[in-house]
């Protein structure tokens, strides 16, 4: 009987395949830390891309002149030591001896100069502080920096940040890339890239010729030599897959988990779930397009009318993962004072808001709120915001785009009225993207520009703090954008992972693997 034969074949195949299922999940390889991240950033060149994850993944490979310890104090990095001139305009860095790039070339002052010149001319923080700076090499281990005017935060800017760190690459790589982003990832860091399958995974190996910064490991400072031999970063686009893979032991660490799965994963006692500050959520107005939000009353109406708790719950689910914050800087950036106005500002005064709106002369003109689905928290916040604004009497239509279209649309002056911006933390307030004059929709206010200009020349932290207070006051009066709060990134790890520290993102070389 022919068809019985078929069935028998099928049964046989099934029987042969069964053992495959019982091999056990051998994902946890000895000495390899497997970390699941979201989609691969389009570029890993921190000088060029403003994407924070590109920067924080790249810091496993690239290093900076100075570092920040856990208390955010400046510590040595590739620069073993440095001297600052009296007037604060001249810095002289002495490079660490014996540092070699992953391709075997020794680190020279020329590499540093080439890197930092490039960083100074293409990155936002670089252009902010160093566009008129002059870098030069001296001898075999000295790099000098000449500034036109002194600044209080030169060293902080050169330390690893959440975006666009001032990383050092070989001068040859920079020359090869020209003005395009670099695609060869060669640094001096604790890990060396040995296999990179685009959009799938990066296989990194402990760099055997690594020159330690010495001292106790703390934050990104101190001894960074990893205790394990291999680091595999897997780019797992689907967030559900990331959390499922963590729970089955496929990944040791999964970063940026969906907020909803945190509670579920926490029930599993072989896993630990934690979070670190991610970014701020703001509602931005389009100052480039004439409309109702030119009127301060309208902006204030939105500011006092919305209910922030609901918005943040929609964005980040659990109060552990979000905080109200009406200030410009993130709450964890303790160096910036929070004594102007309330931090947890959330009056939710609908009546007053409606009155203000009436005063602004709003007559129900249609307004467009743009958002993108590629960032779930921003997107969810936008949906709730749209409903709340509708409730205040604003005729708001939500338009959601894919990421490419979203950035393009945002750059189009006339395409939108409102936007939910997720701002990443910055070392100083003038670098905040929603205050950047050139950023789409940002107000052009003389008072703001005056303060920013003064900030550029703040040579002491005291002056900077004073200016910050003025900026805060202006911010709360002018309402250039509506501050909503800040949200976290959730990550999870297996019990095998110990000692993981966080600064802006996970510091992967701090991990000890327990077996």
């Amino acid at each position, binding site marked *: 009987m022919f068809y019985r034969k078929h069935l028998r074949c099928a049964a046989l195949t099934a029987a042969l395949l069964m053992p495959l299922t019982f091999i056990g999940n051998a994902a946890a390889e000895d000495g390899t830390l497997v970390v699941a991240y979201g989609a691969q950033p389009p570029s890993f060149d921190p000088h060029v891309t403003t994407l924070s994850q590109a920067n924080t993944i790249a810091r496993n490979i690239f290093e900076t002149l100075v570092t920040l310890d856990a208390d955010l104090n400046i510590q040595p990095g590739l620069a073993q030591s440095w001297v600052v001139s009296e007037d604060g305009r001249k810095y002289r860095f002495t490079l660490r001896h014996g540092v070699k790039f992953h391709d075997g070339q020794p680190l020279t002052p020329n590499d540093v100069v080439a890197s930092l010149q490039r960083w100074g001319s293409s990155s936002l923080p670089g252009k902010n502080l160093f566009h008129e700076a002059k870098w030069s090499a001296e001898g075999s281990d000295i790099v000098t920096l000449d500034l036109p005017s002194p600044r209080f935060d030169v060293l902080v800017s050169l330390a690893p940040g959440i975006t666009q760190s001032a990383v050092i690459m070989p001068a040859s790589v920079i020359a090869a890339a020209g003005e395009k982003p670099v695609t060869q990832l060669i640094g001096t860091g604790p890990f060396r890239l040995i296999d990179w399958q685009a959009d799938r995974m990066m296989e990194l190996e402990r760099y055997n010729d690594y020159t330690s910064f010495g001292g106790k490991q703390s934050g990104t400072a101190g001894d960074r030599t990893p205790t394990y031999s291999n680091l595999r970063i897997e780019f797992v686009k689907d967030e559900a897959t990331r959390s499922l893979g963590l729970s089955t032991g496929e990944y040791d660490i999964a970063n940026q988990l969906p907020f909803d*799965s945190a509670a579920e994963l926490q029930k599993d006692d072989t896993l630990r779930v934690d979070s670190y500050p991610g970014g701020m959520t703001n509602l931005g107005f389009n100052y480039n397009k004439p409309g109702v939000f030119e009127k301060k009353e309208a902006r204030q109406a939105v500011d006092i009318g919305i209910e922030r708790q609901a918005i943040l719950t929609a964005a980040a689910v659990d109060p552990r993962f979000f905080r109200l914050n009406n200030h410009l800087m993130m709450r964890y950036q303790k160096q910036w004072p929070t004594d102007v106005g309330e931090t947890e500002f959330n009056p939710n005064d609908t009546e007053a808001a409606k009155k203000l709106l009436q005063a602004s002369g709003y007559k129900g003109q249609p307004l467009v709120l743009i958002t993108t*689905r590629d960032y779930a928290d921003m997107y969810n916040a936008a949906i709730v915001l749209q409903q709340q604004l509708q409730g205040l009497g604003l005729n708001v239509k939500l338009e*959601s785009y894919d990421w490419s*279209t979203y950035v393009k649309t945002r750059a189009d002056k006339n395409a939108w009225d409102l936007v939910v911006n997720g701002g990443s933390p910055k070392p100083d307030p003038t670098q905040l993207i929603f205050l950047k004059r050139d950023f789409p929709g940002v107000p052009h206010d003389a008072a703001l520009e005056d303060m920013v200009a003064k900030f550029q020349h703040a040579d002491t932290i005291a002056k900077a703090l004073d200016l910050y207070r003025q900026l805060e006051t202006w911010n709360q009066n002018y309402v250039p954008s509506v501050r909503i709060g800040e949200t976290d990134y959730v990550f999870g790890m297996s019990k095998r992972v110990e000692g993981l520290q966080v600064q802006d993102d996970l510091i992967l070389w701090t991990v000890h693997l327990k077996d």
Partner: protein
Amino acid sequence: MATSEIHTAEASRPGGVRSILKNRRLLIGVGMIGSIALAAAILPSFLGLDPLAVDPLNRLKAPSPLHLFGTDNLGRDLAARMLAGASTSLHLAAGVTFFSAAIGVAVGILASFSRPLDHILMRVCDGLMAIPALLLALALAATFGPNFSNLLIALTIVFAPGIARLVRGRALALRSETFVEAAVAMGTSNLRIMVRHIFPNVLSVLAVQVTFIFAEAIVSEAALSFLGAGVPPPAPSWGNILYDGKTVIAKAPYMVVFASAAIVVTVIGLTLISDGLRDLVDPRTRAFAVETGRPRFRFFKRRAKNGEPI
């Protein structure tokens, strides 16, 4: 129509009212789709459901008397969203089906009448069909921006070439059928042949195909939602309810369950309609189906009185 004297009995027309009423599958299918459409049209305003009203503090609440289907990840009433989603999904599917059928029929029939035109049109169809449907829709949605009408256009572009090819094939076959030759021989103009002779006769293959496309459009929208190019939220569609439900599948499996069930039920309804239509238009199956009635339920094939497979 000419006179009342001659035209009296209409019931026995092929696919006439009587044979429709005798066609159980068609009736059940139409009933299923009809009740979903009706519920989507009437219930929301009747029950005062708002699919957009958010309540994040009451998110992902399981089904309860207050929220029959529970709430979604933004605390919106899932029942309201399912019904509104039904309306979106059915509208989209109906639109896609209508437009791709209209374009497909026009292109297909035209192509069958002119060789050079046929070559051009069919190469374009081949080209469009060669690009994977989902990716073409994704690229189109990315190009034109994801809103309802652009999605409609994108899916129409995806489905129309298939119909055009199908109709062309049928139309070419019809062109060599005797009754079309008869029309040519009596001096009928091409336009009249297309409209009066070819068109009614391609309807039978079309009828079956369009139900497939209707179903496919619903499922494609869901898949596009998964890739972020479906019906743009916050407007609900079954596809984006599924998408939202995917991340909370462990916490609130009912979101995925309800949305999948809705799609499955709709597609089953459509399949029944499609099968029914096939019975209706295919005289071979019609001959016996009507008289013998419903076959009894048997595990194996029924046999004739004397044991022979029939």
